[in-house]
């Protein structure tokens, strides 16, 4: 960390938009990323990510040919990497909705420059997440009848009392509504790109997707109303999604799962993981595309604060898990804790505490929250930490439950890793494509932050 990273006067918050910007410079600067030439690192990064996509396709093809026996899942550990990664990815998506919806309702202006990017992250994380429950059925085309309620020749319907069907509804609603919210937010910016594009095919493509948007005051009137409604609807939705995911566990009887703290603990963990991923991606992005005027140290500072807060909630969750296990006096609950702390997976539990509880403590201090290097390192700790958390919750609870005769160890295979790294590749490839073809920062919303957007009402 260099001296330049430190703020000049620490009590004065940096602006959310650097001075000197007006509507024209905002459009030009942000659309230049789309219409300009991409630097070499972009192609190298895209190539690596695309390699990951190929690995994912290979791993899934192998899975469909041979069945889920190629994974490390066994009895009693029926859920391994498939559900760990599903929960991890879904959690990452939550920061996008939090930024785009909840912070909008709370009138946090600083959300504006990161909201588009974070929403894209939500969509791609959900896309990666749904691969797992779909393919962990082994034969997804046959699994459709107990995942989706459609009239089938067997005359069967899914069980609406099961948290697993709630999960299907929650995740598919979340994916669809996030896509809608993102697209509605994009329409005015697509219109700006349409008018800015020089090549005919670009004008045509952006023209089709911008639906003939012309920035009419009558349109804005309805648009603002719809945007606010979508934010209001997304807020309870995002809270419901990870709560429902946690019901998959909490409504089971396995020690380590059967806990009422799960819904809030999962939601806080999701926001924690999501903000870490936003920081991981946004810090290099603003640097490489020169977007420091739009994503300022104010944003980094605020994201650091949210990460600290949600991290502390998660730490409280860990403490409560230990406490309730002891306070319950239940043999199996107490053994579960002992097994986590001293059993065969104790190193992962220790890593979890290191990454999610200890590594975030520097965020109490402003000098760390405003240092890009420190923030990026802490965010990487959290990315790993939240993955360890899901590993601790899922296999370590399952592998030693009630009867010692039914215990077994869980070891992921190379196909587990190939699928996992494959989804990371897919996520990054989608991110690269997004930055290339769409404005990564909401231009029309940034324009409302400029000084000239402040209107004095006349004698009307």
């Amino acid at each position, binding site marked *: 960390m260099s001296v330049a990273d430190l703020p000049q006067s620490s009590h004065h918050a940096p602006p959310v938009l650097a001075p000197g910007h007006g509507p024209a410079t905002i459009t030009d600067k942000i659309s230049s990323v789309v219409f300009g030439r991409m630097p070499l690192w972009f192609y190298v990064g895209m190539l690596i990510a695309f390699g990951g996509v190929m690995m994912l396709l290979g791993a899934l093809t192998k899975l469909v040919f041979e069945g889920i026996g190629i994974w490390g899942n066994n009895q009693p550990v029926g859920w391994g990497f498939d559900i760990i990664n599903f929960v991890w990815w879904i959690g990452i998506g939550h920061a996008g909705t939090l930024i785009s919806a909840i912070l909008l309702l709370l009138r946090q202006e600083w959300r504006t420059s990161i909201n588009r990017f974070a929403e894209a992250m939500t969509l791609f994380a959900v896309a990666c997440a749904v691969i797992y429950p779909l393919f962990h059925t082994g034969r997804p085309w046959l699994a459709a009848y107990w995942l989706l309620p459609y009239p089938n020749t067997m005359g069967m319907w899914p069980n609406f009392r099961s948290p697993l069907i709630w999960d299907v509804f929650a995740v598919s609603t979340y994916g669809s509504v996030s896509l809608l919210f993102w697209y509605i937010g994009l329409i005015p910016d697509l219109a700006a790109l349409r008018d800015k594009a020089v090549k005919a095919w670009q004008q045509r493509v952006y023209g089709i997707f911008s639906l003939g948007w012309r*920035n009419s005051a009558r349109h804005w009137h309805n648009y603002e109303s*719809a945007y606010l409604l979508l934010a209001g*609807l997304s807020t309870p939705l995002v809270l419901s999604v990870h709560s429902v995911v946690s019901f998959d566990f909490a409504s089971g009887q396995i020690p380590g799962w059967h806990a009422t703290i799960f819904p809030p603990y999962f939601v806080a963990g999701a926001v924690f993981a999501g903000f870490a991923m936003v920081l991981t991606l946004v810090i290099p992005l603003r640097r490489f595309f020169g977007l420091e005027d739009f994503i300022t140290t104010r944003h980094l500072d605020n994201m650091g604060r949210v990460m600290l807060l949600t991290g502390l909630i998660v730490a409280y969750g860990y403490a409560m898990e230990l406490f309730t296990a002891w306070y319950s006096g239940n043999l199996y609950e107490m053994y579960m804790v002992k097994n986590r702390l001293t059993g065969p997976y104790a190193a992962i539990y220790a890593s979890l505490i290191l990454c999610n509880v200890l590594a975030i403590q520097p965020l109490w201090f402003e000098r760390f929250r405003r240092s890009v290097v420190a923030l990026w390192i802490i965010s990487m700790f959290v990315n790993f930490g939240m993955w360890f958390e899901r590993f601790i919750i899922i296999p370590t609870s399952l592998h030693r439950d009630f009867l010692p005769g039914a215990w077994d160890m869980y070891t992921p295979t190379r196909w587990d890793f190939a699928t996992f790294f494959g989804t990371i590749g897919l996520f990054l490839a989608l991110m690269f494509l997004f930055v290339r073809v769409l404005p990564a920062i909401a231009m029309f919303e940034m324009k409302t932050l400029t000084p000239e957007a402040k209107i004095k009402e006349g004698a009307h």
Partner: protein
Amino acid sequence: MHAAEATPDLHGLLAEFGSAQGLVDAAERAHRAGYRAMDAYSPYPIEHLSEVICEHHRSKVPLICLTGGVIGALSGFALAYWTSAIDYPINIGGRPFNSWPAFIPVIFETTILFAAFSAGIGMLAVNRLPEPYHPVFNVERFRQAGARDGYFLCIEATDPKFDRTATRQFLVEAGAVEVNEVAP
């Protein structure tokens, strides 16, 4: 409407203003002068401008959204009830077939789903989008600046008070930097 009186070869007059404040002031002035068939264009939403142009009418979108949400809730419950209690009743853990508290998560999700899509699609429908052709794009200056940094006010030829020369004069007096005729 007085469409018959309108000049057939003209959609309206499009005036450009130098700032958002200038556009808002001009829109207020045009409203006071009695113009109603007009629209303003700004690269970002300006709440006060929409109030002037829409004459404080409330948007229909919230009502569409509410309707969608109610239909979503009823559909979610109907789906769960019909499949679990009528078409495929199965005794699971001794619960009643219509174990409605267990249906709440699904009902909640369908409510949000229908409400959100009603708001989104309803907004497009109320705005009559997608609209492949609109006359304002015939003005070269609008194509360049409409979505970038331009502030425009268009008084349409269908307005009873519209007059090609008098309206142009009015717009210039209201502070327009440039006034263009909009081909229909």
